[in-house]
């Protein structure tokens, strides 16, 4: 599961910090308890010394028992009794009718040849109250610390990661096909981010170079291919003019000619694609889509003997600021597709309304994934007559002018919709 770094960090802190604090508190409590016991023992011993001194100086003429303070008994202790070690005990208070916890310490002392057992008492209640109070204060402070750590961490993370987020935003909007260079700040105040920015800047420079090389390669390759294609074409023309041409040879030449023409056409289209990518169509003008569309439709009706039934609703409201050649290529490619990939006695619907051109045609479903349809050399059918570049060209032109194009197939109808963006150009 992926979360934001900040969330993950907070989660770690919230899981581990309380645990650490809990262990610390336990340790603190144990130590506090140990020190308290030690102090009680000292106090009991001190009391014993004081009482014994008073007992000797007054030759035994003091009270032999003060409840809750001390008692002195003549005699020796039983061998099982623990001497000189604090022990828990309780004393019953008649006024409050309650048992109160006490610590007692018994010492074995001698005076004038007689043995005495001196036991001193000290109340445990105060100590346990003190322990609780100290412990509660400590817990409160630790909780405060926990909150402070989490809050400071969140605040500082937001601040520290800002250069990173800025970089991410720029990298995300970077589009290699638009041939842009990316400038990231070299100084962010954090060495790691400086290095990251430096690395990304260098990487993008390399990507741009590679992309440029690739584009130039396609363009150069297409240009270089023109000459051999021209040679083949000229030889074929000479060949069909040879005397004594047989029908069989003519059929062979016909096939070569068709293949060579397809190659030429493909090459020309690749070149056109490369040129669009290289931004070699900078001239733009305001173009009325309706006018172009009508002209193209008229042309197609002239060119084809049999054409599917075309019904067109054209509103004269859409103008775009584009290159006329490219918009012509865009629309004629779409209409050509609607004609070529139609079925016998099929239909075509064309609707141009405010900034949207919808072209629908009847036809069998595609054998290719619709998402790949706009990629180069992806054909929806295995027609050998087509180059598989028409829709790639459409996509490229739409990208150039930020038009949106999408395709869907429903109930035997192919639908291509182009949304012209008014703001474009």
């Amino acid at each position, binding site marked *: 599961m992926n979360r934001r770094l900040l969330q993950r960090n907070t989660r770690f802190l919230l899981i581990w910090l309380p645990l650490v604090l809990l262990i610390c508190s336990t340790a603190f409590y144990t130590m506090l308890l140990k020190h308290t016991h030690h102090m009680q023992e000292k106090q009991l011993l001190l009391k014993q010394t004081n009482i014994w001194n008073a007992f000797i100086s007054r030759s035994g003429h003091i009270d032999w028992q003060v409840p809750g303070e001390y008692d002195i008994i003549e005699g020796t202790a039983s061998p099982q009794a623990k001497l000189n070690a604090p022990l828990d005990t309780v004393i019953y208070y008649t006024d409050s009718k309650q048992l109160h916890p006490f610590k007692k310490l018994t010492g074995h002392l001698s005076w004038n040849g007689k043995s005495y057992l001196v036991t001193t008492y000290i109340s445990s209640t105060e100590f346990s109250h003190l322990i609780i109070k100290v412990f509660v204060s400590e817990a409160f402070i630790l909780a405060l610390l926990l909150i402070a750590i989490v809050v400071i961490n969140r605040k500082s993370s937001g601040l520290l990661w800002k250069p990173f987020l800025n970089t991410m935003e720029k990298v995300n909007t970077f589009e290699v096909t638009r041939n842009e260079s990316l400038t990231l700040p070299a100084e962010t105040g954090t060495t790691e981010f400086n290095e990251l920015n430096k690395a990304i800047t260098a990487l993008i420079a390399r990507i741009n170079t590679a992309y440029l090389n690739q584009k130039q390669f396609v363009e150069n390759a297409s240009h270089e291919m*023109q000459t051999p294609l*021209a040679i083949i074409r*000229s030889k074929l023309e*000479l060949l069909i003019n040879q005397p004594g041409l047989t029908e069989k040879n003519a059929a062979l030449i016909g096939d070569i000619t068709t293949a060579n023409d397809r190659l*030429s056409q493909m090459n020309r289209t690749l070149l056109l694609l490369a040129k669009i990518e290289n931004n*070699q169509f900078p001239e733009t003008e305001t173009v009325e889509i309706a006018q172009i569309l009508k002209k193209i439709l008229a042309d197609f009706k002239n060119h*084809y*003997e049999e054409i599917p039934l075309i019904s067109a609703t054209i509103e004269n409201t859409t103008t775009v600021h584009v290159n006329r050649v490219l918009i012509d290529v865009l629309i004629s490619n779409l209409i*050509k597709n609607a004609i070529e990939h139609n079925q016998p006695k099929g239909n075509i619907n064309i609707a141009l309304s405010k900034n949207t051109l919808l072209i629908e045609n009847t036809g069998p479903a595609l054998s290719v994934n619709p998402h790949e349809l706009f990629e180069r050399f992806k054909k929806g059918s295995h027609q050998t007559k087509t180059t598989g570049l028409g829709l790639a060209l459409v996509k490229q032109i739409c990208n150039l002018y930020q038009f949106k194009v999408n395709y869907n197939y429903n109930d035997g109808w192919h639908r291509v919709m182009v949304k012209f963006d008014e703001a474009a150009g």
Partner: protein
Amino acid sequence: MKLLVVEDETSLLQSILEYFTQEDFLCEGVGTFATAIEKIETFNYDCIILDINLPDGSGLKLLQYLRQNKKDDGVVIISARGSLEDRITGLNLGADDYLAKPFHLSELNARVKALIRRKYAQGASMLELGNLQLDLLARTVTCNKQPVVLTKNEYDLLVYLLNNKNRVVSKQAIAEHIYGDQADNMPSFDFVYSQMKNLKRKLKEKGCDELIQTVYGLGYKLSL
């Protein structure tokens, strides 16, 4: 008619020379910038077919040289670079026409003939074959002295065939001649068949039948 072909690809050069020799041109072919300059300085040509990418210099430089020296030989550029800017650059430097590779020889032939007619007003403005006459200025066609009414496309088609008479002209060449770059968008040659069918019918009505022959589905040939 004297023709100089400047093209460094020997195969293509040979093709062009062969085609134009059959058209009764006096043809010379060279493959380098230096030899082309030599030829231009020594002789006058009616038309020069010029490739731009030469091993030892640019065809455009040759064109500049030609125009700076006040030689007004007709120039048709043939180039692998066919973009609008390339065309404009070529034409601005004084070329008379610009043809992008790969081209059809029949198209080059038609362009060269049109150029020569424009430039020198030679052979007047009449194209003839048998009893078929075509007046380029008036844009009229007569067959056995009877006017034949043709559409623009049919007229263009007939001019093209007359420029390439006695030769097989491929249907692809016809498609590209009539529709230019638009031909790319026409994967079928239906329209060539239908235009040709109409043209044949109209000529037959006026008694010029059998002039256009179909050659095994490859193309058409206009001959007696």
